[in-house]
Each structure stands twice: as C-alpha cells, then as structure tokens.
C-alpha cells in the first residue's frame, strides 16, 4: 500500500512540474511570437536586395496559393524578376530560404533565412569563406571579403535545369558540401520546387 501511495505522489509532483513548465512556455511563446514574426519580416525585406541585386524597387509581399513572393522592379517600373520564399527538409528541421529569379528563370541569388543544420557540417550552407591569410593579417593588408556564402554563390546564374547536386566540382551543376550532402540537396530542392511553384502561380 505504501508503495502505491509513493507512486501516486511522484506522479502528481511530476504532473505539477510539467504543468508549470507548460504554463511558462505558453506565456513566453505568446509574448515573443509577434516580435519573432516581425524580426523575420525584417530579415526577409533586408534579403530582397541580396537575391535580386539588379532590381531597384520591390512590391509588397504577395501571398499566393502555393508560395509567398515579391516582385522586383527596374527603375522605369518594369518588371525585372521575382523573389520567393521556399523551404525543404534538411538534415535537422526545415531549411528556409529566399531566392530571386529574373524573367528568363535565371537565378540571381539565394539567401538562407533559417536552418538548424549541424554546426561545422550542414551549417556551411550559410558560411562565408574568408579570403584572409595569416600573412595578410600580420601585414595588416585589407582583403576584400565576400558577403555571400560560397555554397549560395554557386546558384547565381543557374537555371532550373542546372540545379543538380554533384559531389565533384562542375561548371553548371551545384557542388555538394563535403560531409553535408543532405543539406546541400535540401537547399537545391527548395530552390527548384520554389521556381516550379512560382511558375504555376504567375501563369
């Protein structure tokens, strides 16, 4: 009998601890949710210029049936291209990105918005390779730094038919990150599917 009572007691204690945890999480989540969404919108609008560098103006967000996209305009208000948000399942969780294409369907740039890939392996999809060397640091030379991760840079100028991931370097295919093939493929898939959906949307 005594054993049963102690089991019930433990059960009730655990119940209350989880209850407090849930209440805390719900409160924090409801407080932070609007701010997190706002931060995300800010991030997206900052990225528009990166993925469609030749557009001067951007439309408001257009929420389609299948995809969320923006129109990029030239100086004379002519349509230059589209930027769209797409995602695909990576190694851990969804990889979300924004990509820009011109009217011919050539990719102008992509930027990773959110990912939870393994640091040091999959996270390289969003890492910029430094051009500095020890010598240039000691000499204090200024080295021009890129601000686009090398993996994302590969997409620039490619068309949807070239979006294939290979393990070796090749001119018109995407080279996978060593040790992170799944992440590399996920990014490529997100871009490819995104373009397909965009085509259906703007038909």
């Amino acid at each position, binding site marked *: 009998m005594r054993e049963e009572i*102690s089991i019930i*007691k*433990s059960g009730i*204690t*655990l119940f209350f*601890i*989880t209850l407090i*945890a849930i209440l*805390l*999480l719900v409160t*924090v*989540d409801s*407080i*932070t949710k609007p*701010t*997190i969404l706002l*931060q995300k919108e800010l*991030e997206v609008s900052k990225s528009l210029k990166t993925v469609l560098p030749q557009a001067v103006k951007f439309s408001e967000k257009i929420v389609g049936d299948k995809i969320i996209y923006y129109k990029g305009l030239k100086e004379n208000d002519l349509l230059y291209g589209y930027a769209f948000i797409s995602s695909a399942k990576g190694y*851990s*969780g969804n990889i979300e990105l924004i990509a820009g294409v011109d009217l011919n369907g050539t990719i102008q740039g992509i930027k990773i918005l959110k*990912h*939870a*890939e*393994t*640091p*040091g*392996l999959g*996270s390289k999809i969003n890492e910029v*390779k*430094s*051009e*500095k*060397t*020890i*010598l240039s*640091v000691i000499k204090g030379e200024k080295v021009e730094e890129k601000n686009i991760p090398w993996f994302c840079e590969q997409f620039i100028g490619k068309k949807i038919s070239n979006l294939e991931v290979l393990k070796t370097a090749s001119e018109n295919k995407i080279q996978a990150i*060593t*040790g992170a093939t799944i992440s590399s493929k996920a990014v490529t898939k997100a871009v490819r599917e995104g373009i397909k959906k965009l085509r259906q949307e703007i038909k």
Partner: protein
Amino acid sequence: MILVKEFTKGIIKENPIFILLLGLCPTLAVTTSVSNAIGMGCATTFVLFFANIIVSTLKRIIPSQIRIPCYIVIIATFVTIVELLMKAYFSLLNAQLGIYIPLIVVNCIILGRAEAFASKKSILSSIIDALGMGVGFTISLILIATFREILGAGTIFDVKIFNDYKPVLVLTLAPGAFLTLGLLLGFFNFIGKKKG
C-alpha cells in the same frame, strides 16, 4: 579554497570531455572550426550555469524517484525559453549562437551535472561547478578544434595559414573527429596516469 577546487576540477581532474566523456555528440560536430567551438562552449556554459542554479534550488522539492524526468523537463523548458527570447530580442546573438541551442538540449553534460552535482550541493558550489565545467568544456572544444581546423581546413579562425596548403579533408569529417578525440584522450590519460 574548496570553491577554487570546485572550479578547477572541471578543467583538469574532471574535464567533461577528456575525463568524464560527456557531451561527445556535439563535440564531434562542432569542433571543425575554432569559432564554432567557442560558440558552442559559451552557449553550453550559459545554459549549464542556469540549469545548475534551478536544479540546486529545487533539490528539496523533487522526489528522488522521478528526478531524471524532472531535470529533463526543467532543462528543456529553460533552453526553449532562452531560444524564444533570443529569437525575439537578440537577433544578432541568435544569428551567431542560434544553431547551437538545439544541440544543447541533448547535451548530457547539463543533465550529468544536474544529477551528479547540483542535486546534492548548495547553490553557490553548483554555480562554481557550472562555471568550471563550462570553461573546461570550452577549452577542450577549442583544443580539438584547433587541431582539426589547422590540419583539416588549413585555417585558424577562418583565416588561411598557408596559401598553397592541401588540407587533410578527413580531419574535418566525422572520422577525423574520432581520431583527434581518441589521440587527445590517450594523451590526457597518459598524463593523468603519470601524475596519479
């Protein structure tokens, strides 16, 4: 004096990676570069610090039979709250450390210290223990990462060392992590045996 010992044991005598062999999973993943190692080390120390405080404060309330699920709930809740707050109000910090946070939840150092230390000792010594363990963890990560980054990528802090050095690619991959870790473990054990 005891507090000083509580701190230094995490760095040498009970080093979480080389002696206790805790938290090896994230260790293998993040030690490809020194900057990753520092990021992971700082994030872990931060969570460990607060997890130890919370567990030590609640040690009388939590019944011993169900302590493990309780610790898991407490740690996971705390980490999730930190993640949400960081995303909302510290987006710069989130961009730097955000990818390490999910790895910390599964880091057994946190649970290990809650179980082995914070649940038995006072709050003050739990804090010191957390700091010592955190520093020990960070130093060990940096040690492994330095080795792997220099030989495996030919860089340090993402800065190229030689212009025409062909990196030993295997060191940046998982097998390289095991090799480096194994060699360093052997080295630390060798030194420990000689001393003791």
